[in-house]
């Protein structure tokens, strides 16, 4: 016995242990072979001939066992391809030797190769690090053993865990891991379409905006849907996730992705939708826009232009715009004009426009290997036929209509792309997909000219910059929570758009003075980078 104990404690035992296991397995195989070989010897001559059902019965049994083993292999050997399973083990498996704890998740890179997320080894366990902290909290998301996955970390989980088996090489790698029981499976790096510099600037500017420093910025390429900036402020630090992040549900909640999920009244920026509707339905001519405004019934407060309020505040008189055409009305952002335009078009045309623009939908981004991000479009309950005032209000982006910044950016992008909205895309290697056509190419071209006019000589002229050729629409959205939300959506350069954007600053005030300059600075930065 002492001999045995000494043997087990001696250094060569480790090698012997492996050899013993091997011998055990080989002996079992030998036994099986022998059992087959000795079949003749153990044949049962004194028994009856086998009944006909023996073969099918044995076949069925074999089939069942083979099926079970095959299925078992998809977990035991191919468990890497089950992201939920890996996540479960990373959370709940206390076996130290479980490879799930050693997964070196791939890095997440921005379009220029800057690292947005990477894994380090610390004390034997893999630790996820986000160099930019809160800046990419919503877009990149987090991968945390306690809180699970979100953002790109979630939609590309399988690739990051090294689980997408697309090429022969991937299968070879899986085979190598299975055979060698590699304890450090390594995931694939993932290149996104995001631009770290632009995103950083966007977050910085929104956070600095008065009075609350909350808002969102979305910048994307109209031609292929590549998202360069997807910023939501405030963020949270994915390096230091706390349970408290997940509990707050009020307006200040940093967990909410304001860019894709935040529903805000779009205000005047929504007028581009009405303008598109008018162009599509063949509207031309002028509408009278008097100073006393427009209302559908004397019981309701008239809808007036902002110049009226400015003049009133300054103690001046204002004569009103008089007759306006569509282009000028858009440039001047006349509420009176668009309220009338909405009523003129009628409920049915407005509902059809909503349909065409994918209102009340959840729009999927181009999918990742294990899921997809989604953005909410505009939200608008159907307006009853008798509610004409509601229609007039919706026509100027107030009342019952709300929209997310990402959706407004999508509209701007569609105008810039001959009326076609491309599906937003975060992963560089995913091919572009067409989402839908929002308007005809002709309408889009004419709107492009009008929106350029809105910046060169309309409400946005404060940000007119040589060489940028910005086209866009400001928005100043009244809301019950406080000061107006400040919007600016558009694209640049107007003649051949390369970038489309939407900027929202919560309670920022005028779109022309708060959101628009942020957009301009971002475009300047982009231009520096040759975008």
């Amino acid at each position, binding site marked *: 016995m002492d001999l045995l104990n000494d043997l087990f404690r001696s250094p060569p035992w480790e090698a012997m242990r492996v050899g013993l296991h091997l011998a*055990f397995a080989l002996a079992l195989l030998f036994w099986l072979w022998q059992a087959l070989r000795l079949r003749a010897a153990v044949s*049962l001559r004194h028994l009856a001939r*086998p009944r006909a*059902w023996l073969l099918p019965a044995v076949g069925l049994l074999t089939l069942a066992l083979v099926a079970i083993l095959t299925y078992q292999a998809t977990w035991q050997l191919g468990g890497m391809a089950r992201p939920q399973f890996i996540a479960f083990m990373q959370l*709940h498996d206390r076996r130290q030797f479980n490879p799930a704890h050693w997964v070196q998740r791939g890095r997440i890179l921005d379009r220029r190769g800057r690292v947005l997320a990477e894994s380090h080894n610390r004390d034997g366990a893999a630790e996820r690090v986000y160099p930019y902290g809160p800046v990419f909290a919503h877009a990149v998301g987090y991968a945390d053993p306690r809180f699970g996955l979100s953002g790109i970390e979630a939609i590309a989980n399988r690739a990051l865990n090294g689980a997408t088996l697309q090429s022969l090489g991937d299968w070879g790698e899986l085979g190598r891991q299975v055979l060698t029981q590699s304890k450090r499976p390594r995931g694939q790096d993932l290149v996104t379409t995001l631009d770290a510099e632009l995103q950083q600037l966007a977050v910085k500017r929104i956070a600095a905006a008065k009075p609350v420093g909350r808002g969102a910025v979305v910048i994307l390429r109209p031609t292929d849907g590549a998202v360069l900036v997807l910023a939501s402020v405030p963020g949270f630090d994915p390096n230091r996730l706390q349970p408290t992040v997940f509990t707050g549900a009020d307006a200040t909640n940093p967990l909410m992705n304001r860019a894709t999920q935040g529903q805000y009244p779009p205000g005047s920026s929504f007028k581009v939708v009405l303008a598109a509707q008018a162009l599509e339905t063949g509207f031309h001519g002028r509408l009278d826009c008097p100073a006393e405004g427009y209302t559908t019934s004397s019981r309701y407060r008239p809808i007036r232009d902002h110049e009226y309020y400015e003049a009133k505040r300054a103690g001046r008189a204002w004569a009103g715009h008089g007759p306006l055409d569509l282009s000028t009305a858009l440039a001047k952002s006349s509420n009176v004009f668009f309220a009338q335009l909405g009523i003129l078009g009628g409920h049915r045309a407005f509902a059809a426009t909503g349909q065409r623009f994918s209102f009340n939908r959840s729009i999927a981004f181009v999918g990742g290997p294990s899921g997809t991000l989604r953005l909410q479009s505009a939200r608008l309950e159907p307006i009853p036929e008798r509610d004409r005032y509601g229609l007039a209000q919706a026509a100027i982006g107030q009342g019952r209509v709300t929209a997310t910044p990402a959706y407004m950016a999508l509209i701007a992008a569609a105008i810039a792309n001959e009326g076609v909205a491309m599906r937003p895309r975060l992963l560089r290697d995913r091919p572009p997909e067409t989402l839908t056509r929002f308007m005809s190419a002709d309408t889009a071209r004419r709107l492009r000219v009008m929106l350029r006019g809105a910046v060169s000589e309309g409400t946005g002229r404060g940000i007119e910059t040589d060489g940028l050729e910005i086209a866009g629409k400001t928005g100043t959205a009244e809301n019950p929570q406080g000061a107006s939300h400040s919007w600016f959506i558009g694209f640049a350069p107007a003649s051949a758009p390369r970038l489309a954007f939407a900027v929202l600053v919560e309670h920022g005030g005028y779109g022309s003075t708060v959101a628009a300059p942020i957009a301009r600075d971002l475009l300047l930065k982009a231009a520096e980078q040759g975008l």
Partner: protein
Amino acid sequence: MMSRVTPTNLEDFWRLRAPERQLLLWALLIALLGYLMLLGAQTKEGLDVRLSALIPLLVFMGAFVSAHLSLVLARFRGDQLLLPVTALLSAIGLMAQARTGLLGAGALHGSKLALLPLGVALMLTITIAGRQGRYRLAARATWVWGVFSLLLMALVLVTGQRYRGAVYGLGLITPTELLKLTMVLFTAAFVDQHIKRLSRWRGLLPPLAPHWRLLLVWGALLSMLLLQRDLGLVLILGLTLIAVLAAGTRQPGYLLYGLVLGGAAGAVLIRFFSHGLSRVEVWMNPFTDPTGAGWQVLQGLSGMYAGGLWGEGFSEARPRYTPIAESDLIYAVWAEELGFAGSLLLLLLFAVLLTRLLTLAARARTPFGLMAATGVATVLSVQTVLNVGGVTKALPLTGITLPLISHGGSSLLTVFASLGLVLAISDGEPVKSRAKTSAPKVAPKASKTSKATNMPDVYRVGYGLRRKGGVKPVKSSPQ
């Protein structure tokens, strides 16, 4: 017509059973290797190996060596593969249970140690008592098995304790395990008695009249089992009933109707049993409640994933994170420690055992033997498939033990008893007694027609029980 001399004296039987001996010795060697691996791992945990640690192995070896010797002494000419493969699977069960800590230091209780030799002794008793056709005595006791099953079930229902969502039994003994044998015997005996009427179908319809007593007993039993919420056992027994009926009467229609009716009943029942429904839901998507209902199967799978293809081997990292490791999830423990390769070997052994059981059933010489063996083979096959399938999430987890491997006295003893029965059946019929049957002239003719017409009556060849004295079979039956 061959005239092979049938072994008569002990020497002949010693030689006859050489293949069994050879396979058994190899099995014991494999057990020794496995046990060394086991002890080595124990040392890694800082424990000294004491002489007493060898006791389970010695007991195991002693049991199976004496089993072989007993069979030779009893001039047993039945199957030679069943004993060695049972020994191998028992050895694996021993190792797996040692790994879950059941046979570790301090856990070496007499009762646990005695279980294996007790099971082997039970198997031998049944084999030797039932050899040379005497097992057919069991067919005369139809209603003993039926009434015993019902009473047992009623007793469990009244006194049983609830454990893991189902009523299991008296303390930690699960008497319902016994039903797997007694119901097989009841069904086989009943069908044996009414085989002609049961085989006579009217077109596509089975005869209903002769069935009612059978259906009454089965209906009462299954509803009591359902009350008890032992869905796994309902499944095992239900499939067994169908298989026995179909094999005995040679009417595949029983299989068809049984599966269709059983499937429909199952689909309806599962809606009324929250217990069953939740198990199915957990099976379909364990990740909706990973730390609750999905925990067991997911932890088992995690262990298996950690084991990978080759496993860590028996080492210091004990599989202590797998829930109910020693019984239901023991397959996961094995697959974790010895990897996918190890579980493949284990399932190959099971395939050998189950195929052999099916073969012996399909070659039995009497309808009763055929049905009893078919019943045992079906019970063990379904049990194996349900357990392994449940652990690997290929099927819903039903809380069924893995034959011969899982810890559990009632289960183990029932399995050994069932194997003993099949061994007895594999011994065939006494050849000499044929001369004493009432229709000696019909017999040889019938044996020839047996292959041609497939008439159940030909089973009557050699019918007749020896009431006393050893039987000395002189010649093998003409084939």
